[in-house]
């Protein structure tokens, strides 16, 4: 009997409950590949769905709650190989999607801070878990040791392939090492997590540029597959007069210089141009270099900045001003050095397709600001030509690109995104390569379903306010530029914050055959989540469309819980006189085929 057969698609109930593998016989577990289950998980667990790497967020938060930090770390690591790193610098698409942050529900859960807690609070004797396949004698070269390259290398090593990483810089890590400042990401932690990847038998060659020191064609001859994961390193230019003056820095190069231990000149008054993480990192680094008047200059408003609230707050706390609705038009100098910058005011305007807010210059609104230096952090694009001109010919699909033996992943394919997307892209790429080298797929995503008796949390937990991250004071930030600003949650804080998670991975269902339609559950539900319906349309991806509600008893087909609206308060479960509401723990996992 295939494991999937244990879960009947027709009846949607567990069959043969006692005959599942003996070790799990008490637990009643099933693995499903039914589109409806994938759809249900996608719709009901918004944080996991928003995470490019599909991290089991409610799962690890529950482990933090149970103080099983090691297990929480491993749950993270099974989706992303750098949990401690991402727990500090992730762009947190999960938090934006968190149901706790929806209107009237309060603030989203501090998912990223809890991820960090897994790494910080796991016992010193914690052992990482790797499910290794037998060696295959296949060789793969990975170009670039940034997040995408590391993820590809790690997963290929797990699959039993021999991996060599080529890194052009002195140290591995790519953007993590050279783009992100140390006060946000301590280098000893970064190196520890990189070493945990490299110890899978992966070899690392640093200081070698492919396309300069070694030709790509050479690698293609020597290896069974080559992965290009060189990221985005070509900075976008301002394209205005005066850009080449002394003390006009490019954001990425500025961060690189600082991360190499240099001290580029910033002076006292600094204008940073840009609205992303790099711009804020540059501004905060300028403060640490002794600047006293640092401004972030953005074309739109703060709402459209590509950074999260805590980053905005830290920048503000460090005295950085944000000038919104401005666009640089000219950099002014004395012939050699920058002395000022001219801006124009902008206003927001709507673009209909695709719906987007753009900024438009306001005529005759030029004004000049005196500055000692300008840092332009406008993002970067992939450098396609350096590695090989042939790379333009790669076949592209979503975040993947390949042709013959050559594969590409991460920002090189997608353009500048975030670390978690690069890792997710890297992992996908590794699976594609393995399939090609191995001749068939070895891993498959399934939904693990486990009967769960309780809701695991009282309703009172819904009202716990969000816990802010602990940080060091301004004096300590300035005394040594590398001092990490955020210090992490202590054990009790992590526990308290973990209580806030709704545990959306718990699926609530009403058995329509046992239900007596007393409506007691509807009466106690704090949200509009239990509905009397006449129909639910199903989308091709297994998700539900809009519930067709009815208040006419003659039309009621079922009373049902809309899991996408449910905040898992458990009130319905407590009040049901027929005990016809079941809780099932759903988990998106990967298993061997």
């Amino acid at each position, binding site marked *: 009997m295939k494991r999937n057969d244990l879960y009947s698609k027709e009846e949607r109930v567990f069959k043969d409950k006692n005959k599942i593998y003996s070790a799990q016989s008490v637990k009643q577990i099933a693995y499903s590949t039914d589109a409806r289950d994938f759809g249900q998980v996608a719709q009901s667990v918004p944080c996991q769905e928003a995470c490019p790497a599909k991290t089991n967020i409610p799962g690890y938060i529950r482990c933090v709650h149970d103080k099983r930090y090691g297990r929480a770390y491993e749950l993270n690591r099974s989706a992303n190989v750098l949990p401690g790193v991402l727990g500090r610098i992730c762009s947190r698409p999960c938090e934006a999607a968190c149901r706790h942050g929806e*209107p*009237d529900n309060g603030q989203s859960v501090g998912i990223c801070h809890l991820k960090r807690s897994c790494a910080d609070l796991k016992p010193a004797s914690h052992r990482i878990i790797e499910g290794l396949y037998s060696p295959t004698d296949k060789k793969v070269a990975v170009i670039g040791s940034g997040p995408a390259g590391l993820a590809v290398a790690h997963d290929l090593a797990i699959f039993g392939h021999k991996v060599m990483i080529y890194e052009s810089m002195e140290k591995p890590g790519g953007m993590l090492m050279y783009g992100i400042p140390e006060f946000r990401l301590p280098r000893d932690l970064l190196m520890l997590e990189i070493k945990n990847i490299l110890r899978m038998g992966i070899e690392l060659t640093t200081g070698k540029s492919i396309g300069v020191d070694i030709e790509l064609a050479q690698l293609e001859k020597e290896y069974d597959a080559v992965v290009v994961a060189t990221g985005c390193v070509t900075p976008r230019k301002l394209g205005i007069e005066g850009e080449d003056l002394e003390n006009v820095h490019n954001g990425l190069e500025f961060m690189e210089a600082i991360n190499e231990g240099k001290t580029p000149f910033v002076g006292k008054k600094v204008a940073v141009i840009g609205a992303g993480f790099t711009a804020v990192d540059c501004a905060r680094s300028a403060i640490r270099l002794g600047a006293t008047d640092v401004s972030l200059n953005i074309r739109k*408003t*703060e*709402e459209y900045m590509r950074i999260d609230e805590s980053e905005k*707050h830290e920048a*503000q*706390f460090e005295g950085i001003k944000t000038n*919104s*609705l401005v666009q640089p038009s000219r950099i002014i100098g004395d012939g050699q050095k920058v002395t000022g910058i001219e801006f124009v*005011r902008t*206003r*927001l305007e*709507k673009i209909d397709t695709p719906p987007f*807010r753009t900024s438009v210059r*306001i005529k*005759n*609104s*030029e*004004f000049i600001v005196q500055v000692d230096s300008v840092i332009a952090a406008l993002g970067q694009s992939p450098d396609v030509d350096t590695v090989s001109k042939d790379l333009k010919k790669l076949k592209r699909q979503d975040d993947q690109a390949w042709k013959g033996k050559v594969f590409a992943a991460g920002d090189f394919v997608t353009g500048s995104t975030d670390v978690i997307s690069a890792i997710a892209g890297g992992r996908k790429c590794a699976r594609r390569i393995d399939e090609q080298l191995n001749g068939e797929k070895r891993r498959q995503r399934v939904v693990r379903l486990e009967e769960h008796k309780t809701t695991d949390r009282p309703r009172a937990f819904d009202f716990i306010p969000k816990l802010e991250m602990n940080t060091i004071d*301004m004096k300590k930030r300035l005394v040594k530029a590398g001092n990490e600003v955020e210090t992490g949650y202590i054990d009790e804080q992590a526990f308290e914050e973990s209580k806030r998670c709704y545990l959306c991975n718990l699926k609530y269902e009403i058995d329509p055959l046992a239900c007596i339609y007393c409506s007691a559950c509807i009466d106690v539900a704090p949200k509009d989540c239990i509905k009397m319906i006449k129909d639910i349309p199903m989308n091709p991806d297994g998700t539900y469309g809009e519930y067709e509600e009815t208040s006419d008893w003659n039309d009621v087909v079922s009373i049902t819980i809309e899991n996408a609206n449910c905040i898992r308060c458990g009130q319905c479960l407590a009040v049901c006189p027929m005990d016809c509401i079941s809780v099932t723990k759903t988990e998106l996992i990967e298993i061997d085929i």
Partner: protein
Amino acid sequence: MPSKDHYVIIGNGPAGNHAAAVLRKKDADARITIISDECIPYYYKPKLTGFITDNISRKDLLVLSLESYAKNNIRVRLGQQVTRIETDSKTLHFDHMEKIRYTKLIIASGCNSRVLPSMELYEESLKFVTSYTDVMEYKDQIKNAKEFFVFGGDFVGFKFLRMLNAMGKKVTILIYPHAFWPHNLSDAMLDQMVASLEKMNVKVIVRDDIKQIKESHGAYQINTQKGIEKKVDMVFSFNGMIPNINFVMGSGIDCDHGILVDEYLKTNIDNIYACGSCAQIYNPAVKSYTTSIGWPNAVSQGEVVAQNVLGENKVITSVGRKYFDLEGVKIKTTWWKDIDDESQL
């Protein structure tokens, strides 16, 4: 035919009430609702210091009585807070879970006290004088307290300082040059201000910053970065005002520091307008965006917005260059009328 419009005004200050008055005058049948998170009818905010010292009674503080709203057929919802605006369905959500619909919405929610990022940790120890609700909470406490510490400065702060001085209280002030947002004080301005304050027997601290505020048994111990230690009964913060627009965030209405409006006080969303000190307008005269402050500006913006809601296209114009006086230091304002000029009320 009676108008089917429901004009909803968020804010019960001069902008909101003058808008309501114009709307009522020109559209006798429309439903008009004013929403306020305070539990008092329209009152003179600049007279709050006089109310603290009992020179003014609650009745004198009021501009309108509850009866006068009823007389004008204006529904007033007091003590209710809008938490969210759904622009597609033209619905307002309240924190008590009620929802109401509008056909046209005027946001005139005014300002709140600005808390400096460096002081956020101590917010619970800080007191503000921004509303009747604040004042009612502290009025007796102010009378009984002897020693005060004031952070920042700003116009209201100096007025409060003069009031405390007249009451014979001991006051220490730590002036933040950036409390006068959007203006930063120059060193010369600061020195002039200090000299003027010291004549008033106020202890002044400059070029220093907060280290910590510790509360014990209802009193506060303040330590500054440069080592000054002070024990006081009450701590106040006056660091300028910021538009009260949290409930607008996420609604799709464009906001910067305030709600972005064009010269007709229209937001980017149809049928939603903003006026008074919560609105931010591009002012070609200064090549910058400004938020207006002061009672007379709020009144004129309220009147203009009402006319535009009714289909006119009235442009809000700059009202000339003025100066306001902070303890002998003149700060130039280019958009604002004299603020807090009670003679004009």
